[in-house]
C-alpha cells in the first residue's frame, strides 16, 4: 500500500465526502471527516519522508504512464504543502466542530462537512497532481465547495460575498484554463514535466507569452494579489469562522503554489523572469499590496475584515520574496507562505472564538473583552505578535530571511518597505489590543464567558506552532530552502 500513498492522499477524503451525504448524522459525519483528515496528515508526513529518502515520487493514475496519463508527482515543495494543508485542516477541524455547530444551521451541517471534505480534496489534488489540466479541475472542485461553504453562514451578506467570490474565482480559473489551452496548442501535452521539456523550444512564440500572461492573471485572482483582491475581504469576513480560518490558511496558499509551479517548473525561471518582466511587475504590485492592505486594515471596524486586508498585505510579502528571482528570495517567500498560514489560522480561530461568544467581531463590541475572555484574547495577541514579526515568533523568522534575501539581491529599499509595512501591522493589531484590554465594556452589553475548551485547545495548538517554529526557526527554513533549490532546478 505504501506505493499507493499519492493516490490515497486524494481518494480518502474523496470517498469520505459522499459517505458524509449518506450518513446524514452530524456527529458521525464529523467523526468520519476528522478520521480522514488525520489519516491524510499521516499520509502527507509519510510522503515527505519518502521524498527526502528516495527523491521525487511519480504515480501513474489508472496505470497509464506519463506523459499520456495523469501523473501524481510529489517533490519536496508539494510534500511540504501537503503537510501544511493536512495539518491546518486537522487543527481547524477540531476547532470547527463547536464553532460550526453554532454558526451553521443544524439541517445543513452534514452537507456542510461533505463540502468541507470536497474542498479539502480539491486543495490536496491541486498540490499533488503533475498534470496541468488536472490542476484546473481540482481548482474548481475546491473553489465550488468553498463558495458553498461561505454561503452556509447565517449572515445574508455571506451569500452576496459568496456570489462575488464565485464570479471572480470563475474568471480566474477560466483564465488559467485559457493559458493551459494555449500551452496544449503549442506543445500537444498537458503533463507538467513534459511541458517543461518542450517549452524551451518555443520561447519566441507569441502564444507562449499570451499563455503566460493569462496564467499569471488567473493565479493572481485566485491568490488575491493586489489589485485583484476585491473578493477576499467580504468572503473572509462573512464566512463561518472555521471556514475563514481554513481557507485563509490554505486556499490562497495553494493558489500561490500553482503560480510557483507554473513559473518555475513549467515555464522555467529563465523564461518567467528573463524573457518576461515578471519580477518587476510582481515586485511593484507586492509592495503596493503590503502598504495598501495594511492601511485599509487600520481603518477597518470588523476584525475579520481587518485580518482579511492584512492577508492582502501578507500575500504581498510572499510574492515579494518570489519576485526577487533568487533562490533565497524564493525560499523566503515560501517560508512566509507556511508561516502566514499558521499565523492567520491562529488569528482567525481566535476571532472565531470571539464570534462564538459575542456573535460578532466588531471592534466596538469587543471593548473590555480581555477580562471576560482572557485566553482567547491572549491567543490573539500572541498571533498578532507573530504577524508583526516580533523575535521568537514565526513571523520574525520569515521576515528576517526576506530582508536578508532582499539585501543579497542588491535591493536596499525593499527591507525599508518590509519594515514600514510591519509598523502598520503594529497599528492595527494595537487597535484591537487597546480596545480589548484598556477600554471598559459597553454598559448595555451582557458579560460573556471564556470560550469553551473545545475552541481554546486547537487555538492554542496553533499559537504554540507559531512559537515553536519561531524559536526553532532553522528547522522549517532548511526544508524550505531545499525545496526551493529543487523547484528552481539548482540540484
Amino acid at each position, binding site marked *: 500500500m505504501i506505493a499507493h500513498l499519492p493516490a490515497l492522499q486524494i481518494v480518502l477524503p474523496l470517498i469520505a465526502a459522499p459517505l458524509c451525504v449518506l450518513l446524514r448524522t452530524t456527529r458521525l459525519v464529523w467523526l468520519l471527516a476528522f478520521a480522514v483528515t488525520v489519516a491524510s496528515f499521516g499520509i502527507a508526513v509519510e510522503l515527505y519522508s519518502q521524498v527526502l529518502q528516495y527523491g521525487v515520487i511519480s504515480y501513474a493514475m489508472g496505470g497509464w504512464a506519463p506523459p499520456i496519463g495523469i501523473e501524481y508527482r510529489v517533490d519536496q515543495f508539494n510534500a511540504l504543502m501537503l503537510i501544511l494543508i493536512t495539518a491546518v485542516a486537522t487543527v481547524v477541524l477540531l476547532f470547527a466542530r463547536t464553532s460550526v455547530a453554532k454558526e451553521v444551521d443544524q439541517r445543513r451541517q452534514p452537507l456542510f462537512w461533505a463540502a468541507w471534505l470536497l474542498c479539502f480534496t480539491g486543495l490536496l489534488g491541486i498540490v499533488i497532481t503533475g498534470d496541468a489540466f488536472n490542476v484546473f479541475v481540482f481548482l*474548481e472542485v475546491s473553489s*465550488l465547495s468553498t463558495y*458553498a461553504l461561505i454561503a452556509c453562514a447565517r449572515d445574508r451578506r455571506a*451569500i*452576496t460575498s459568496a456570489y462575488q467570490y*464565485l*464570479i471572480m474565482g470563475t*474568471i480566474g480559473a*477560466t483564465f488559467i484554463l485559457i493559458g493551459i489551452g494555449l500551452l496544449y496548442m503549442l506543445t500537444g501535452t498537458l503533463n507538467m514535466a513534459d511541458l517543461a521539456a518542450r517549452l524551451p523550444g518555443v520561447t519566441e512564440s507569441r502564444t507562449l507569452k499570451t499563455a503566460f500572461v493569462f496564467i499569471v492573471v488567473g493565479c493572481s485572482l485566485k491568490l488575491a494579489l493586489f489589485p485583484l483582491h476585491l473578493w477576499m475581504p467580504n468572503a473572509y469576513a462573512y464566512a463561518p469562522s472555521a471556514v475563514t480560518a481554513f481557507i485563509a490558511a490554505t486556499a490562497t496558499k495553494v493558489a500561490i503554489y500553482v503560480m510557483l509551479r507554473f513559473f518555475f517548473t513549467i515555464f522555467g525561471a529563465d523564461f518567467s523572469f528573463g524573457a518576461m518582466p515578471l519580477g518587476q511587475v510582481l515586485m511593484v504590485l507586492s509592495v503596493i499590496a503590503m502598504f495598501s492592505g495594511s492601511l485599509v486594515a487600520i481603518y477597518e471596524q470588523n476584525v475579520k475584515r481587518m485580518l482579511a486586508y492584512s492577508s492582502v498585505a501578507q500575500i504581498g510579502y510572499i510574492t515579494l520574496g518570489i519576485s526577487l528571482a533568487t533562490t533565497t528570495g524564493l525560499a523566503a517567500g515560501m517560508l512566509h507562505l507556511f508561516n502566514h498560514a499558521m499565523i492567520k489560522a491562529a488569528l482567525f480561530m481566535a476571532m472565531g472564538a470571539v464570534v462564538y461568544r459575542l456573535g460578532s467581531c466588531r471592534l466596538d463590541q469587543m471593548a473590555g473583552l480581555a477580562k471576560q475572555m482572557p485566553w482567547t484574547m491572549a491567543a490573539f495577541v500572541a498571533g498578532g505578535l507573530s504577524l508583526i514579526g516580533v523575535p521568537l515568533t514565526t513571523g520574525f523568522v520569515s521576515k528576517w530571511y526576506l530582508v536578508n534575501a532582499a539585501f543579497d539581491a542588491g535591493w536596499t529599499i525593499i527591507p525599508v518597505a518590509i519594515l514600514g509595512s510591519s509598523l502598520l501591522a503594529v497599528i492595527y493589531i494595537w487597535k484591537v489590543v487597546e480596545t480589548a484590554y484598556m477600554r471598559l465594556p459597553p454598559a448595555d452589553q451582557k458579560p460573556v464567558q471564556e470560550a469553551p475548551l473545545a475552541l481554546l485547545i486547537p487555538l492554542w495548538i496553533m499559537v504554540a506552532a507559531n512559537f515553536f517554529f519561531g524559536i526553532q526557526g532553522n528547522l522549517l527554513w532548511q526544508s524550505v530552502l531545499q525545496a526551493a533549490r529543487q523547484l528552481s532546478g539548482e540540484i
Partner: protein
Amino acid sequence: MNWVTHYNYWIVILLMMLGFYTIIARGNLVKKIIGLNIFQTSVFVLFISMGKIPGGVAPILRDDPTTIYSNPLPHVLILTAIVVGVATTALGLALVVRINEAYGTIEEDEIHEQDRFF
C-alpha cells in the same frame, strides 16, 4: 497570417469580450451569470476548434489505416470544463435565488444600498 482562416479565434475573442463586458457592466446578478457562461463558452470554442484537423473525421477507430482523425483530447477536456461550468452556473443561480429571498432584489446597487446601514 491569414485573417480569414483563423475565423475561429475571432469568434472566441468576440464571445470572450461579450461575456466579460456583460459581467462587468451589468448590475443584474442573473445577467452576470449569463455573461460568465458566454465567457466560459468562448474558452470551450477555443479548445474544440483547436482539436479540428482539416479532413479529420470523428475519432472512432476505423479499419482504414489512412484515416485522419480529429484530436479527441480537447473534446474530453471541454466535456469536463462544461460540467464544471454547469456546476458553477447552478451554484451561482442558487446563490441568486437566496439573495433574492434575503434582499428582495437581484440588482447589485440595490443590494449595496441595503447593506450600507449594517
